[in-house]
């Protein structure tokens, strides 16, 4: 694709003016000056397309990164011509963020590396975008462009903040960091009782005092440790951009941080969100799968969280702890009522409220709860013994998740 530049027009207009003056003054040298100016413009127009022809570009970027990280992306430029040197080529790449590298010249067969640092990548799955080469060399009369398709993708996981534990759960009757105890025989640490030896039992488990007392070989029996199953629901009803990230990005970051904690403590993990009216869930997910799933979440219009939470819970299956990460959208006002039945089902519920009004203005399509309404929601959640964490735009998420907010 070619596009004439302002300079191109300027050169042609200069040539025409010189010709006009030359004709009217019959000054032969002005015809020569006009021809030289026009010659430069035409040469530039003819040569510019050849400056982007035969130049190959390949992108090297990491496949996975965390949101907010600076990403080192390298473009490899190769001049496939055997004889021709290419001049003044601008390589523009919009992958992850806008970047432009300038190649002053690249000789025949030469390979150049164009490293660049793409700052502050945002959560998402980035499919390879085409790279655009442009050059107006040699004289700038016309700019030629060539689009080069590329392959590959980079997943930008949500950022993960270090949280060692969730205090509300620690203070609850069944702390998250301890295994849930069920009267089930198995191999654990807590003593359950003694029974008669059966083949296959370890001799280490023989309970010698009872064996001596009963005359039968008795072995110790232990309680089986069943880890607590954690479910995370992310509200994708809408989104609003904040100074650093969007409200949905923050919700995903909170979910990712909780998922990382669960992974560290080896708790089974399931995630769910409502996508296109149906619950999209990821059960028994490894952390990498969970992060990839969170990276791909996009705002979905449709039913709001309170009316879909039942479906999401169904998709999650059996859980012991539920974490709901939700921006404070207007339709979320009755969230406490929707969650009341969950608390009754002996599931520990934690809600991370992302205060949408601190990110950006409320719009007709994505109405937000006012600060007063958020407080009211907080009160109602508190009333059903739900731990509530509140996050505002610009807050340190790690700090915000240290202690539940007071109602």
């Amino acid at each position, binding site marked *: 694709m070619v596009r004439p530049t302002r300079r191109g027009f300027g050169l042609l207009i200069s040539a025409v003016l010189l010709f006009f003056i030359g004709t009217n003054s019959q000054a032969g040298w002005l015809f020569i000056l006009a021809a*030289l100016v026009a010659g430069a413009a035409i040469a530039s127009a003819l040569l510019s397309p050849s400056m982007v022809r035969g130049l*190959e570009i390949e992108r090297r970027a990491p496949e996975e990164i965390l949101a907010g990280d600076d990403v080192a992306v390298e473009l490899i430029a190769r001049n*496939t011509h055997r004889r021709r040197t290419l001049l003044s080529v601008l390589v523009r790449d919009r992958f992850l963020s806008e970047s432009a*590298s*300038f190649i002053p010249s690249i*000789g025949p067969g030469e390979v150049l590396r*164009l490293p660049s640092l793409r700052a502050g990548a945002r959560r998402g799955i980035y499919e390879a975008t085409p790279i655009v080469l442009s050059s107006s060399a*040699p*004289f700038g009369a016309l700019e030629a462009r060539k689009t080069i398709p590329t392959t590959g993708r980079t997943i930008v996981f949500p950022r993960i903040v270090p949280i060692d534990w969730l205090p509300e759960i620690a203070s609850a009757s069944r702390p998250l960091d301890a295994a849930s105890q069920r009267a089930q025989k198995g191999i654990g640490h807590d003593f359950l009782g003694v029974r008669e030896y059966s083949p296959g039992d370890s001799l280490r488990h023989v309970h010698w005092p009872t064996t001596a007392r009963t005359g039968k070989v008795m072995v110790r029996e232990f309680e089986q440790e069943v880890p607590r199953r954690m479910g995370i629901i992310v509200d994708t009803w809408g989104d609003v951009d904040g100074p650093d990230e969007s409200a949905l990005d923050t919700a995903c970051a909170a979910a990712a941080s909780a998922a990382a904690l669960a992974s560290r403590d080896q708790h089974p993990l399931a995630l769910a969100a409502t996508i296109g009216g149906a619950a999209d869930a990821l059960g028994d997910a490894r952390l990498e799968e969970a992060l990839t799933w969170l990276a791909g979440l996009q705002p979905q219009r449709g039913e709001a969280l309170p009316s879909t939470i039942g479906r999401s819970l169904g998709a999650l299956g059996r859980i012991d702890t539920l974490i709901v990460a939700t921006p404070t959208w207007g339709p979320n006002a009755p969230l406490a009522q929707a969650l009341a039945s969950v608390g009754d089902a002996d599931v520990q519920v934690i809600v991370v409220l992302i205060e949408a009004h601190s990110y950006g203005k409320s719009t007709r399509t994505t109405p937000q709860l006012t600060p007063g309404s958020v407080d009211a929601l907080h009160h109602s959640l508190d009333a059903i013994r739900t731990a509530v964490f509140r996050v505002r735009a610009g807050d340190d998420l790690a700090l915000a998740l240290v202690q539940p907010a007071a109602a």
Partner: protein
Amino acid sequence: MKKAVLRKPAPPTLKPPNSDVADQANTRRSGVSIEDSVQLRVVSLICVLIGVAAVLAQGVVNPSAGLAAIVLIPFGYWYSHTHRTKRNIPLKLVLAVGMILSLGGFLRSMRTADSVDEARAYLAELFLWVQILHSFDLPRRKDLAYSMASSLVLMAAAGSLTITATYGLFVIAYLPFAAAWLFLSNRRAMAHRATSDRVIADSAPKRPRGLWRSMATVGMIAVVLAVAVFAFTPRVQGIQLVAPPFSFGGASAAPISDFQGQIVDPSAAPPTAPGETPAFSPDAYPGFSDQVDLRVRGRLSDNLVMRVRAARPAFWRAGAYDTWDGTTWTLSTQGVNIDVGGSNPAGIPPPVELERHDGQVEQLLQTYYIESGQPNIVFAADQARAVYYPSSGLKVDDTGSIRAPSIMQPGMIYSVISEIPIIGPRELRALPPVTDPDLLARYTQLPPSTTNRVKALSDQITLGAPTTFDKVMAIQDWLKEHTEYLLDIPPDPPGVDAVDHFLFETRKGYCEHFSAAMIVLLRAQGIPARFAVGFDPGDRNIFTGFYEVKESDAHSWVEVLYPGAGWIPYDPTHVVPLAEETRAVNFSGVDLLPKIGAFFSAAIPTGVKDAVGTTLRGLGHTAQWAIANWYAVVPLALLAALAAWALTRKRRERRSRPDSRVAAAFMSMCELFSARGLPRDPSRTPSEYLADLIRGDPIAASRRDDLRIIVRGFERERFAADATPDEEALRLVEDAEAALRRDLQLKAGSSPGR
């Protein structure tokens, strides 16, 4: 997964920092983009100084302004560079005041200007001052661009003032720097759009001097295109927006005492005694007087007489003679001179009705720059209508010859607007013969010395020619065929009629003989004709556009009267039928191509030229023979074409055969996917093809690592600096190709899903 490492990569070398981008941090001052490149400033400065020097070389501007420009502009550039990041508000105020003063000085000078032509010098001086002032405030690239545009204006101003080819030296000097500025500024502008400044060379270019070669190629292409544009630049008559130039050009007027319209030529040979053959001076054409004697012999010098600026060539006419006595042409109406006014332009009265052209005319503006002392004749293309002359008192006789009251001095400039009749053979044939008895008596006069055999020859030549035009053409053609142009001819014997002697004895002569003979032959048929003198157009200098007229370009020709069309010139010497000239647009190439041809003709040794001539003649004979024997030649040619086609195809097949194991693997890959409906477009590079395959074929996507090994191996072999792959790398490529082939054979029948 296999690793596509074919060769240990060359240790990366960091290219010099891309200063174009690196400068950007320092180039912003509250939204203003500051230009930091010293290189760009130096190139711009050189262009401006060349423009200034070109204007100064024309000698039209005040030397003090020139000196100030040469000294202050470099200082201004230095100051601009060192203060480029500052606001310089006081300086800007001073410059604004300076601009106003310069403009005031220009307007003051304009009040004393005699003509708009003179104003060009004042305008050039104003440009100089603007350039000086502007050079102190050039912080941005845009300001430098304005400066470059200003330098082009200076070059154009000098180009419009110059009348010599030496100006070309300035153009030659200006050209590479202007091109360098265009290149560098474009590069800076593109680099300015970049966000990253790091470029690391992974491998050296195959041709280390490729950059210079590319730039030289670009320069050559631009020059060739400029020559092509110049060759096709139309040369048309411009619109006369202002009065054309006229001045004494620093020469002092040399008035003629008791001027009554007579011709005074200071270079003419001193008069001889009555009855004797007049003496000859190589610097004075004998025809620029009150008579033309055909017995005078001699060669005129090649001294430059004048330069004429005009859109098209014409005869620069001095006057005409009507009376022939067998040896000498004279004017029967000596002393019938008309004053043509004292203001500019001086209007030349139109000819009487029968001698006037009533049809379409082409206006031709000519400006004459006198280079050597000349008689007081105002040369002009026929028919002159207005004269811009630096003094009053012009006179014109009834043949349209204009005389000035002073001798023409070197440096004098005057301009003439003429109206050249546009008329073709068809219109001339349709015109009736002249019947006016006075005109016939005056312009069909023949002396008693005219012999019967001359009249008989005239009858013989014009036999069967029905119209005046046909008779004129018949006589002109006869002279072309039967006479020979020769300057060194012996004097005529005493007492002979010069025309009779020329037509029946020597048949050799020069322009006066041709013209006199044609007029006599025409008058013998009752066709009014007269003997015109002046200069032929001269050589056009393709650079300056001026016709350069030498003494030896002095010429005589014939003017034939057609009622209602006026006097139409004919040149029997060179057979230039000016009457047939049309309004057709001239192109510079018309002048340029013969010059190029002449240059090569002079540069190529005679032996080579002869060999080329012999070859061309041989080819011509062969072509004639081939045409005569076409029935044998055509089948043979068809057979030869068939054989050539087969040979070419075989060669192409041989060339397309892989020349290495890596190339064989790559071509095998291409064939495999071509069979799957994904052929490689020749315009796609291997990498582009690879991307197409991965996108378009699931098998290719699943075997992408193998494909990458093959493609990268092929590219490395073809394009890397050290291209020879080692055995391990070769095996890797071949294994990848084999694996791919197996996979595709196993999945034969599956089509690339899209």
